[in-house]
């Protein structure tokens, strides 16, 4: 595992349509809050790791050049990482690698997106190869609708039951987002609203789908030596797992999804977790689509394959349940893509250090954070705990 690493500060912007600030100013807002939270200043930081979606999203190529000042990156090593939806968890992992290697004691990790500045679906349409997949797999909802249908069919799940469980998850996310000061979509909805909402890509309806948001997230990671020296309140990174698969969508099994299963297994092994359902107190599962969140429960061993609906029906994954998921309101209510995966890690760091405010899960000491990306291709997991 290398040297121990902790998250000692987080900063999130308010998310939504942020025409009040430029792209660097948005990042400055997140980074400033991370400094405020950690008590550090830019001079303390030794290296900067940054990331976002394909730069066509904002129309500025290699945007980390443009962001540099807003991250206090002058005079420091600076890289940019892009793995689509999983960018944020890739960022968290890369920050971890920097410190765990022993090369750096304090690293700033930044994810950002300004999705109102361009044409998000149009940009995502250019993520697929131009020869074979682009005409069919462009537009994220289609890919996830294909995956959802296959999942429900594989286990013979009754459509009505799956729909109801998905609707309950949508309501849970929208309700929880009301308690997260940084969340984008803040509306009260009921199960009926979800069931009646417009079909985007059957079986997926508009209230099963995440928004496009402007937002940024910053996280400061520190070595054990620095944590002790500063007397910081650490959220220790106990395990990391990441797994990708074939570039061609039709190759892999997206139901018993090896990329997700392997990422979780690797992280669990490092963290010494053998029964995730019992040992994890809170999870931020990447959930741009309600159906997909249920599929992840199975891949992460929260339940057996084909049993995810039951976790929703019994309230296990709701606040107050055994394994509350996405108490922040999740990706479903806030999705500045380059920041989204890092927000998951920041949220779990807040949870295990009892700093999550109105959406705090009481007594949470170990959490799972996750993001998915590529062309339904990559999965990354991080286990974060308040003890080493």
């Amino acid at each position, binding site marked *: 595992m290398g040297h121990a690493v902790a998250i000692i500060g987080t900063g999130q912007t308010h998310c939504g349509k942020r025409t009040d600030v430029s792209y660097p100013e948005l990042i400055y807002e997140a980074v400033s809050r991370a400094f405020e939270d950690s008590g550090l200043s830019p001079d303390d930081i030794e290296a900067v790791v940054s990331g976002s979606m394909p730069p066509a999203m904002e*129309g500025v190529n290699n945007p980390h050049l443009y962001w540099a000042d807003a991250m206090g990156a002058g005079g420091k090593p600076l890289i940019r990482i892009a793995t689509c939806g999983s960018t944020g968890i890739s960022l968290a992992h890369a920050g971890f690698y920097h410190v765990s290697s022993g090369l750096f004691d304090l690293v700033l990790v930044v994810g950002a997106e300004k999705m109102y500045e361009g044409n998000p*679906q149009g940009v995502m*349409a250019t993520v697929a190869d131009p020869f074979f997949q682009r005409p069919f797999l462009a537009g994220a909802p289609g890919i996830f*609708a294909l995956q959802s249908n296959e999942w429900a*069919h594989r286990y013979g799940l009754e459509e009505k039951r799956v729909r109801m469980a998905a609707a309950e998850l949508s309501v849970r996310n929208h309700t929880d987002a009301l308690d997260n000061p940084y969340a984008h979509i803040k509306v009260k909805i009921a199960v009926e609203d979800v069931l009646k909402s417009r079909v985007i890509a059957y079986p*997926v309806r508009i209230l099963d789908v995440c928004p496009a948001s402007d937002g940024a997230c910053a996280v400061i990671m520190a070595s054990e030596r620095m944590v002790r020296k500063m007397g910081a309140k650490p959220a220790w990174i106990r395990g990391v797992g990441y797994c990708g698969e074939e570039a061609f*969508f*039709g190759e892999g099994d997206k139901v018993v999804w090896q990329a997700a299963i392997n990422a979780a297994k690797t992280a669990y092994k490092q963290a010494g977790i053998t029964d995730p359902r019992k040992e994890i107190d809170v999870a931020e599962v990447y959930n741009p689509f309600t159906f997909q969140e249920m599929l992840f429960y199975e891949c992460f061993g929260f339940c057996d394959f084909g049993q995810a609906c039951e976790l929703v029906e019994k309230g296990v994954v709701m606040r107050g349940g055994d394994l509350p998921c996405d108490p922040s309101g999740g990706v479903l209510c806030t999705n500045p893509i380059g920041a989204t995966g890092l927000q998951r890690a920041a949220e779990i760091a807040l949870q295990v250090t009892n700093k999550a405010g109105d959406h705090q899960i009481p007594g949470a000491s170990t959490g799972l954070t996750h993001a998915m990306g590529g062309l339904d291709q990559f999965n990354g997991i991080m286990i974060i705990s308040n003890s080493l």
Partner: protein
Amino acid sequence: MSGESRILEGYVSLPYKWAMGAATTRFFEELKNKKIMGTKCPKCNRVLIPARSFCSHCFEKIDEWKEVSQEGTLRTWCTVNFSYEGQPKEPPYILGIIDLDGADVGLPHFVGGVDLDDFEEAAKKVHIGGRVRAVWKENRTGNILDIDYFQPVE
């Protein structure tokens, strides 16, 4: 800093020329002749479509060509009811992943030949595990859309 924040409007439009490589070039040429060709990995023996010059699992170079069936099983499907920039056709339409007989990789493509105005009826014809067959365009120009769509067969 407080005060007004104005918007600058701009446009970025760039042309590209994408080299296909020999495997994709031949695959598209064969489509003109209504043939769907895969390549077979010498190590894992999987038949990969569209044809590839190397195996995605074994990293082996591939030279052996195999024609696969124009008929297969629908692995999964969905409708697309939303619009986006660069979309190949007007929504609503149906997407599918098709496991063609003789191929070891599913092919994403359109599922067509059903009336989407009556969704219940369409969903009876388009279902996971159902059989579908390629319907070809009259004028084929050597690209993946030479297959117009895959139609459910009884």
